Structures are given as C-alpha cells and as structure tokens.
C-alpha cells in the first residue's frame, strides 16, 4: 500500500480480523466445567506456581456468556450432559472446548451406566488432554494449542 511510502517504518498496516484474532487468542476467557479431580489440577494451573495468566487466560468466568473457552475437566454423568450442552450453547461465538483428562475424553475407568463415554460424542472438542489427572503443564500446552487454532 502507498501509505508506508509517506509514513515509513512508523506505521504498520494490517486487517481488523488479524488484530481482533491476535487480541482474542491472547486473552482467552475460560469457562471452567470442573466436576472432578481434574478441576483440582486446573486450579493449580491457575494459581501462582504455574500461573496461566502468563498466557492471558487467567480470567475464569463462571458465566458462559462472558467466556469463549470451555474446559471440561472431570466425569460427565448422564444427568450432567444436558447441563453441559446448555451451558455450551450459551457461550458466544467463537468458542473452543478443551476435553481435559481421561474421563471427559473417553469415560476413563468409569465404563458404567451413568457416565458419558467422552463428551466429544455430543460436543465439538478441539483439544484433548490425556492423563488421570493431567499435570498443569499439559493444560498449559492445550491452551497454547488453542491459541494456534484461534487465529
């Protein structure tokens, strides 16, 4: 574009989309859906030692209307699944889902009548984290993967 010829290095041209995506991916607001022990690891990830705020995602929102990243961490029973779907539907677009841990991803050791065998049967999941429970580093890695997707 011709505008650089006038202003030189003091000006950068870009698109609104790129700026908004850059801002969005560096300020993900997670919606925690912690139902079991994975949520304890999620708390550890958020607190000082691992400090998820280094990656801009420390603003945990307990309202789905203010968040764009759902972290499903824990067992989802068949009584909870309609609640999970409803909360996911209440989140504004664009939105991403992390399935944290063995139970949320596949049912884990709970191969029983009451447990949903993987939330990805009913929700679009973007990143899976293996582990029972996963370490905080895994959750941070998943967040970085989401940031790669969210452009």
């Amino acid at each position, binding site marked *: 574009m011709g505008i650089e010829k006038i202003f030189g290095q003091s000006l950068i041209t870009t698109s609104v989309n790129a700026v908004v995506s850059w801002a969005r991916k560096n300020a993900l607001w997670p919606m925690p859906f912690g139902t079991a022990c994975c949520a304890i690891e999620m708390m550890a990830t958020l607190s000082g030692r691992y400090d998820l705020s280094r990656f801009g995602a420390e603003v945990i929102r307990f309202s789905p209307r203010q968040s764009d990243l759902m972290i499903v961490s824990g067992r989802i029973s*068949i009584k909870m699944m*309609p609640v999970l*779907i409803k909360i996911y539907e209440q989140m504004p677009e*664009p939105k991403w889902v992390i399935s944290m841990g063995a139970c949320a991803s596949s049912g884990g050791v709970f191969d029983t*009548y*009451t447990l949903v*065998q993987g939330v990805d049967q009913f929700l*679009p999941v973007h990143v899976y984290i293996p582990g029972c429970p996963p370490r905080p580093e895994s959750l941070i890695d998943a967040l970085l993967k989401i940031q790669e997707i969210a452009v």
Partner: protein
Amino acid sequence: MTPEEILQSLAGRFGDKVASGKSPGNGRVFAVVDREHVRPILAHLRDDPALAMDMLSDVTVVDHLRLEDPLVRERFAVVYQLYSLRHNHRFQVKARVPQDDPSAPSVFDLWKSALWGEREAYDMYGVEFEGNPDMRRLLMPEDYPGFPLRKDYPLRGRGERDSFPQYRPPRGAT
C-alpha cells in the same frame, strides 16, 4: 444392649414373626421379618425406652438374585440400620420383599431420615415405599428407565449413556 439382647427382647414380644440372622462377616446378629410386620417391630424398637432406637442411619436394599439366603427367601430385602443415641447401641432389621411386587411400607412417619433413604433405595432397586410422601428418584435422572443396582441390570446400562442430542451449531456460526 448387645444385638443379641435386642434380638431376644424382640423375639420375646413378637414370637416367630422375627427370625434371627447372623452376618458371616462380623458375626453380628440381626432380625429378618416379613414386610407386613416390619412397621410394628420398628415402631417398637423406636418407642420402647430400653431400646430407644431414635435414629435411622440408613435404609438400603439388598438384591438376592444371585445370593440365595435361606432366611430372606425373597429376591429383595430392605435393610434398616438403626442406632440409639441414648443407649449407644445399633441394630439391623431386614424386611423380605418379593420380586413380583417390589414394595414395602414407608417408615417416614417414624424417622424423617427415611425420606431420602427410601428415595435412594427406590432409585437404585425399584422398591416402592408406600406412604412416602415424595416417592421420586433421588440420584438418577427423572426419566431414567431402569433400576441400576439390580443385579440383572448390565453394568454399562442399556444405551442410556449414548442417547443425547448432539450439539448442532447455529447457521452462520464459525
């Protein structure tokens, strides 16, 4: 009082309506009765000042489908766990419940704690408690079709865990 003494006093008052059982595990004795007689016997256990079972710790059900018990004889047994805060003694009463009519009288008017205990027992085993004012499921979803702790119910269920509407993104969503 020891469980043996409590059982003796019950046998003295109710005669052959009370059968005596003995746990193969801890060796403690308990009473096995027909469901028609369970209410007067439990009321006696609560109201007799020497027994004074003022607390119902739990109401549960045992499914004897693959665990034949010559004392119980029927498929189900409702188990009442009683405790006396005044005398610090415990006692168990089992009531026989047949398979073709799985119901038992409620003891909600004797102990308020029976309300949720009986609801859980109904939820898991399908034994209905007549007289319970709130005979709904307690833990499972309200429209759940089976009774999951019955021994003929498969561990993985009958497909309930796979029957949910899938999320479909609205038109124009990214």
